[in-house]
């Protein structure tokens, strides 16, 4: 890794002991009794969980632990069987996914969803909120949206520059590499001016050369006052950037706490050993090679 500088960790986030379901001083997401089953299989069963504001939280766990399903539930892409959850005090139960996004909670996907046959700049501009030209009647007359569109383009170009995609602005997204698409997806999500950014495996399938820049981008989100919740398998990354770690196994939260302490907990080791016996968590320096595919 080229960047050896340690990011500033935020500590003292919780109230009481760092046990599963512990209270946070300033929670952004509060989840209660959320349960989802597929056929007979319980995918997610979370009693209580709070995600702290203004920091980077990692959601880890072996394959099939229900991390992506929880993501889908929280963002309205899937509906739970039971349970309630709220975002900054507003209940999100039954709120459709697009409204969740409008409220400032934006997500990315494990399998990158770049809009292939739109250009990079079109992908970016699509992300901007409150565009008057997106209403069908105003769309017909450029007078209503020309100026706003130009402003959005300026903002999009700034972000593209930051993500080093500015030279590709007129290319179709389909022509980008896998890592560039991840970057584009993240940049596009930032176009919505989110409060909470939820990243589903931002490092999966990314060329190691791009990993560091992606990490830096995630850390800088925190610097800009955004809250980040991400799913990741790469323990090195989790340890490096997360302020708080939530561990899931078999749909339940089995442990949570600051990264250094939580990874030593017996429940975490058990959870991982159950899935992947030869992994020694204490010695991990790179990506853990866990077979993907089941966790789609």
């Amino acid at each position, binding site marked *: 890794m080229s960047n050896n500088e340690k990011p500033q960790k935020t500590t003292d986030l919780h109230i009481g002991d760092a046990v599963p379901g512990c209270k946070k001083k300033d929670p952004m997401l509060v989840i209660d009794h959320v349960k989802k089953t597929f056929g007979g299989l319980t995918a997610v069963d979370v009693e209580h969980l709070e995600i702290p504001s203004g920091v980077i939280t990692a959601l880890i766990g072996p394959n099939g632990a229900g991390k992506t399903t929880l993501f889908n539930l929280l963002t309205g*892409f899937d509906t739970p069987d039971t349970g309630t959850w709220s975002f900054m005090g507003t209940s999100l139960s039954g709120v459709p996914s*697009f409204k969740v*996004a409008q409220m400032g909670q*934006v997500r990315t996907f494990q399998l990158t969803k770049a809009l292939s*046959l*739109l250009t990079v700049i079109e992908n970016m501009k699509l992300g901007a909120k409150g565009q008057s030209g*997106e209403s069908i009647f105003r*769309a017909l007359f450029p007078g209503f*949206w020309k100026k706003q*569109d130009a402003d959005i383009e300026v903002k999009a170009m700034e972000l593209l520059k930051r993500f080093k995609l500015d030279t590709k602005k007129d290319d179709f997204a389909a022509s980008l590499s896998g890592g560039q698409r991840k970057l584009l997806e993240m940049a596009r999500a930032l176009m919505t001016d989110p409060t909470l950014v939820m990243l589903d495996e931002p490092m999966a399938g990314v060329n190691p050369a791009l990993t560091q820049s992606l990490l830096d981008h995630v850390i800088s989100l925190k610097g800009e006052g955004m809250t980040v919740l991400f799913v990741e398998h790469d323990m090195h990354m989790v340890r490096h950037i997360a302020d708080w770690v939530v561990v899931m196994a078999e749909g339940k939260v089995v442990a949570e706490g600051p990264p250094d302490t939580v990874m030593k907990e017996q429940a975490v080791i058990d959870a991982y050993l159950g899935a992947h016996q030869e992994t020694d968590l204490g010695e991990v320096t790179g990506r853990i090679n866990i077979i993907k595919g089941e966790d789609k």
Partner: protein
Amino acid sequence: MDWGSILNNTLAGFLTPTTIAFALAALGLAMHFGFAGLLNFGIAGFMAIGGYGYAISVLTFGLPWWAGMLVGVLGSVVFALILGIPTLRLRGDYLAIATIAAAEIARLLFLTTAFTDVTGSADGLFGFNSRPDGSGFQNSNPIPQGTYGFGPFTYNEQTLWVLVFGLIVLTVAVWFLWALMRSPWGRVIKGIREDEEAVRSLGKNVFAYKLQALVIGGVFGALGGIIYTAAQNISPGVYVTSLTFFIWTSLLLGGAATIFGPVIGAVIFWVIQAFLSNLLPALSTSGILPVSTTQASTLRFVLVGIGLMLLVIYRPQGIFGDKRELTFVK
């Protein structure tokens, strides 16, 4: 063989009410499939509702022609809403089957003898373009009686009036689609075609956009049906699934994700049709083609089928489409 007449008749295929009707319907499909990625296999149903809405309002309710046409358009809006609200959540190929079934239901309802008084059942309706009370479309014809044009493009005042009116409607429709697709609205629609979940994650109400696209494309289809009906009688036998497939062929000929592609595709389709429908029977009567005249005219639809297959396999973006623009993402 009379090559002069074959050429003449082929050129005439460039500009007929039918060509304009096809162009409008194909434009509707471009909105649905090319831009929004909606697999609508029921465009014939939208056309039938436009045409019948117009004819029935004039004949049964005595409305003036322009109000009748408006009813046809409104009918297609209602049809799009009834069809779209429940089905737009379905996966692409399910939507295809739902729309083709809905179009067939519409056709069977126009065909049944149960509503003969209103629909004319199998015989269809006639006498609505010229009305004894002067409220018909042809009664408002500003063009004096006579013959206009030259060579293959010779029209009487009635056909000319349909053509002029049809071209105005087509121009407005093309402008409308063009204006929409260059706007941020069009960007959202194209995004939905690529990946609706991604667009949803950016806070766009995907369902509302899809419904808007379905309604707009449906209205274009209905306008096609109305122009077709303004030039002749209306008969349920026209609005079969083959009509839908011929319009798909026109659309794919020109390029599904383009503005002018559908129009050019419709023109190409009908010029080829006019050419083959003149050439093949002529070849058969002159003994070059060893088949009967009826068989010769069947042959051109065999060629349409083969053409459609070759087009989709080898040039799915259409003759004028950009190779990168449409690769049948789903």
